[in-house]
């Protein structure tokens, strides 16, 4: 059963891969069309949440999917990103774009600090530390009333303005912004994965000792992966705050951490497509099954259990069958040897791109 589903997915993948530029064009076209579509407010909110969680998933994916460090406290980073942006905007009147970047940078710095204990801790111990971190962040947000307004949260967050055009829910501007951010984060995630640092991340995940013997400064890369992950999560948080009128500490509790983790696990660890898909499923499910009332969470839980039984690698986490792109150098060597010059058809690492 598994094999058959994999074959179907692989077929879809090869089609997607073949037409990847077409998909990119369609994606860009979608951004242009969105403002002219009459999207209802309820729908717009769900669409935006899917985008936010896709980004959160991609952020956590850098940590779990690439480097193999499990964080249970990403809601903490999410909260820091959201509050930084919201407070800079409302209290200091900072321009949204600047505040968004600041959210990413500050969260990345906190990520650096949280990455430090990861040098000494591993496995579940690190997860517990991140769990504590998330609790501390929500506690600070609740208690530090002079800055964060405590439980009242931050109100009247202004919508971003882009060259005089106000981006909001009604004109689809926020959806366009979401699409742009998702594209950037997705492409960046892929680029990181296939960079030298990305290979080092994955080597650490596979075998820390062997990675060390290759000359990889394991601790440095673990921290770097924390920083990148926190940066992406912070950006997602900064964007999230402007899609709401107000934010409060309760929106960033432990459940949110678990939801982000679920996006990563259900979508498919290590992939970008999986993050988008996982976010879509987890956000749509409660909406679509609204008629089940309170039973929907029971069904939801059952579905998760069934899914983990039959697709433990995540819905879209199959082994890619696309040809792996050899580097120019290797190709030259192989060709000089009179060996096979056509790309080898084998399980490789290419991903279907970041299109939705």
């Amino acid at each position, binding site marked *: 059963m598994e094999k058959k589903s994999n074959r179907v997915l692989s077929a879809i993948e090869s089609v997607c891969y073949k037409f990847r530029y077409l998909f990119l064009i369609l994606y860009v076209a979608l951004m242009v069309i969105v403002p002219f579509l009459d999207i209802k407010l309820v729908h717009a909110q769900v669409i935006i949440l899917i985008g936010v969680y896709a980004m959160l998933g991609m952020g956590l994916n850098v940590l779990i999917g690439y480097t193999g460090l499990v964080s249970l406290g990403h809601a903490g980073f999410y909260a820091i990103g959201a509050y930084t942006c919201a407070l800079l905007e409302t209290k200091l009147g900072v321009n949204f774009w600047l505040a968004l970047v600041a959210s990413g940078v500050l969260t990345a710095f906190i990520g650096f600090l949280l990455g430090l204990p990861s040098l000494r801790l591993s496995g579940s111990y690190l997860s517990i530390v991140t769990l504590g971190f998330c609790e501390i962040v929500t506690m600070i947000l609740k208690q530090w009333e002079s800055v964060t307004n405590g439980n009242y949260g931050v109100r009247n967050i202004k919508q971003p303005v882009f060259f005089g055009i106000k981006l909001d829910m009604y004109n689809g501007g926020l959806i366009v912004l979401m699409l742009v951010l998702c594209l950037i984060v997705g492409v960046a995630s892929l680029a990181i994965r296939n960079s030298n640092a990305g290979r080092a991340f994955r*080597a650490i995940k596979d075998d820390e*000792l*062997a990675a060390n*013997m*290759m000359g*990889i400064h394991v601790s440095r890369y673990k921290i770097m992966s924390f920083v990148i992950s926190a940066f992406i999560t912070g950006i997602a948080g900064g964007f999230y705050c402007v899609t709401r009128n107000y934010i409060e500490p309760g929106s960033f509790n432990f459940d949110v951490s678990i939801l982000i983790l679920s996006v990563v696990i259900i979508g498919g660890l290590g992939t970008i497509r999986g993050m988008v898909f996982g976010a879509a499923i987890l956000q749509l499910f409660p909406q679509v099954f609204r008629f089940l009332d309170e039973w929907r969470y029971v069904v939801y839980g059952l579905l998760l259990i069934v899914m983990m039984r039959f697709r433990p690698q995540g819905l879209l986490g199959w082994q890619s069958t696309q*040809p792996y792109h050899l580097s120019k*150098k290797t190709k030259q060597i192989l060709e000089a040897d009179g060996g096979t010059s056509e790309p080898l058809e084998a399980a490789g690492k290419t991903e279907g791109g970041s299109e939705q």
Partner: protein
Amino acid sequence: MLKITDLNVFYGPIHALKGVSLEVNNGEIVTLIGSNGAGKSTTLNAITGIVKVASGKVELDGQDITNAASHKIVQHGISLSPEGREVFPGLTVEENLRMGAYTRQNKQEIAQNFERVYDLFPRLKERVSQPAGTLSGGEQQMLAIGRSLMSSPKYLLLDEPSMGLAPNLVQMIFSLIEEINKQGMTILLIEQNANMALSVASRAYVLETGRVSLSGDAAQLAQDERVKKAYLGA
């Protein structure tokens, strides 16, 4: 020359290495044989900085590298192919090799190393784009050795290259080790398969419960009654 003098290593209260001394001269294959728990891997781990050395010295061409950080060892020109073929299963063969060249900056040198590894192991060339986890045991061992050659080391440390391989593959791996040595590589070989190890090495050390009990010419040691009885099954 890789020189170890009077090395002592502790695991908590356990005295794992009790004053081990050995030398590996340039261009030779030196093997370290011994039974399980004799301290063979501990010796390698001490050289590469994975375990802390309590006392003693590790010198490389006269330079003291005792307790150097293990990610820096490779920059000193020592490359370790760890026990149990620890390749990166999720990375492709090419990416694994690329990781081996991680500390190298010179592109031409990396390309040469790729070429050299593919020459030595044509099998890897056929599998460049395959994830290493899908290779057979023998191929993974080839990859592990190939990967450790990618950093252009002067000294190659091999930890149990024959482990878990079929006899014909063991033969093949050992003849490749000889081939690599002929190309000018100095090799320190840790083996349980004493027969094979003594047949390719020029000198050997026998390790027993953390001490060097015998050492000398490999061919002579292979004739030694004590070695025959304990390790060669004669």
